[in-house]
């Protein structure tokens, strides 16, 4: 309880929390939607915001508000899949590299650094442009996960390197604990908060990447996501025709979502970092 109180003292955490809660609530509203998100021409087209279409309707004959609820749900889903799968890869690579050390470590870090400096968006585009429109939500999540782990694998490795030097590792080893039990039982508790704080950053990256792919017309365009909403609005010239409600909805939602995620992640990171924590305590 005390932790939560301390976190909410940071304006960024409070704001981020409010933003995300609102968006998750919107995502859950999608289950109550009166419309099918994939079908066209269900409502009159190109209507500005008015009751009952509170955010207007688009040129495809869809209600922008209900479409947006699906978009947030799907974007969050992709981001969650990408983040959790890539966390697993990052944890495994980081743990092995940090624990084994030596040539295994060098080889893994060589690979990690190699992937890190590649222009990853190019790789994503290459895959997506050949799969053109065939990637499901889960598939997209896994594809993003495949490229999203190297940075955090380095972080995990650094942490394991310092854990390995500590006394409890020797105690555990001398008392006959197996490697797996040591890693899962003793190291994981230290590493999981680290992984958790990187989840949010990775979600931000995944959401931005999804938008990029969608704008290029490379994701499954009939599935509403924040990216595909933007794609259709731009494709149908909503900007030139003055249908601001259609284009602003995904733009504003994206910004709120990403700013919310970022605020929480920064504030969590500062909370977890012992140096800034000490600074905060002395300042008070």
């Amino acid at each position: 309880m005390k932790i939560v109180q301390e976190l909410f003292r940071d304006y960024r955490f409070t704001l981020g929390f409010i933003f995300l809660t609102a968006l998750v609530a919107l995502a859950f509203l999608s289950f109550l939607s009166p419309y099918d998100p994939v079908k066209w021409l269900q409502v009159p087209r190109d209507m500005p915001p008015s009751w009952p279409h509170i955010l207007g309707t688009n040129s495809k004959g869809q209600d922008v508000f209900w479409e947006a609820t699906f978009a947030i749900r799907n974007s969050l889903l992709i981001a969650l899949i990408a983040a959790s799968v890539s966390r697993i890869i990052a944890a495994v690579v980081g743990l092995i590299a940090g624990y084994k050390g030596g040539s295994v470590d060098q080889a893994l870090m060589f690979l990690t650094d190699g992937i890190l400096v590649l222009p990853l968006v190019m790789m994503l585009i290459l895959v997506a442009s050949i799969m053109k429109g065939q990637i499901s939500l889960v598939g997209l999540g896994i594809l993003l996960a495949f490229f999203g782990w190297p940075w955090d694998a380095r972080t995990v490795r650094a942490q394991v390197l310092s854990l390995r030097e500590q006394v409890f590792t020797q105690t555990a080893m001398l008392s006959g604990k197996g490697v797996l039990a040591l890693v899962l039982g003793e190291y994981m508790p230290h590493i999981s908060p680290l992984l958790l704080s990187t989840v949010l950053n990775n979600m931000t990256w995944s959401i931005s990447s999804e938008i990029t792919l969608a704008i290029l017309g490379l994701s499954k365009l009939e599935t509403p996501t924040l990216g595909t909403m933007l794609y259709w609005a731009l494709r149908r010239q909503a900007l030139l025709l003055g249908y601001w409600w259609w284009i602003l909805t995904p733009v504003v939602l994206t910004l709120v979502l990403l700013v919310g995620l970022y605020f929480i992640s920064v504030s969590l990171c500062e909370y977890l970092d012992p140096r800034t924590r000490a600074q905060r305590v002395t300042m008070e």
Partner: protein
Amino acid sequence: MDDLEEENKRMKAKTLRTYLARRILQYIFVVFLGLSLVFFIPRLLPQDPIRAIIGQFQQHGAGLDTKTVETMVVTFQELFGLSGSLVEQYLTFWRRILTLDFGPSFFQFPTPVSELLRRFLPWTLGLMLTSTVVAWLIGNIIGGIAGYFSRSRWARLMDVLATVVRPMPHYVFGLVLLILFAYLWKVFPLGGGASIGKPLSFNIVSLLDVLRHSFLPILTLVILNGAVWYHQMRLLVQNVKNEDFVQYAKMGGVRTWCLVSQYVIRNAMLPQVTGLALSIGQIYSAAIIVEIVFSYPGLGTLLFEAISRADYNLIMGIAAISILTVSTLVLIVDLLYPLLDPRIRYR
């Protein structure tokens, strides 16, 4: 005494040599890994690029009998380097890379892909290098000063600004700038790299025209990337300024500005150079995306065209040249690093 100095010098030369050898090895590895990925990804995927193109033809109403389709498949296989066994294809692929010959482009047939790349790459490089240098310098200088005077009001204001801007995706931020400054308030052009109909030449008018067209794309990149450098530098400086040598210098009466620039920022800058090397891939990706927003005539816009016309050779060519460009830039930054850090010693 002389012996010791000699020994010292030799050690230094050795660490520098291992550093350079490691970096160059890494460079070769990255290029190999990246290009191999470019080769294997399309071949491991269930989708066939040739069928996709022929499908597109048929969609446009071209009635093709099976025999024509067969000949077309063979022709495209030749054209795309997709004929023969996997090993043969792989060798063809590397030959194409080494000669920088990616075959003809499909949507601007018969212009060779390498010709298109040569025309579009300078724009991307120009946009990316200018914005990166500006963003890196501005971000580090402001971040350094703000980190040193972190309690002051304007430093806190900068912090809030950077925190709000930083998470915005490049595409969306660019779009917002485009709407504000080109669509609503028409100070900048809606897109492109230079005014249409005027040939590019080296005079002031032409240069100003290019600058006017590049301003919003550069601004997008500078603000978003600068915010990242700002934050990192600020954190670094906050740690450096509490170190003993800074405290001593302060007590020794070193002037504040000299202290900030020579003692604090200079020391905090080194990790930022490493950071620059590591993030060039991301910066490049961002530049590609920003180009698409502003229809800037670089590789990003070319890629957009290539994707919408399913131009396989061109997509492969752009992917390959991107990997070469990015890893070469990383290598250059890595090679510059020893010049900045006199005590380089790497395990």
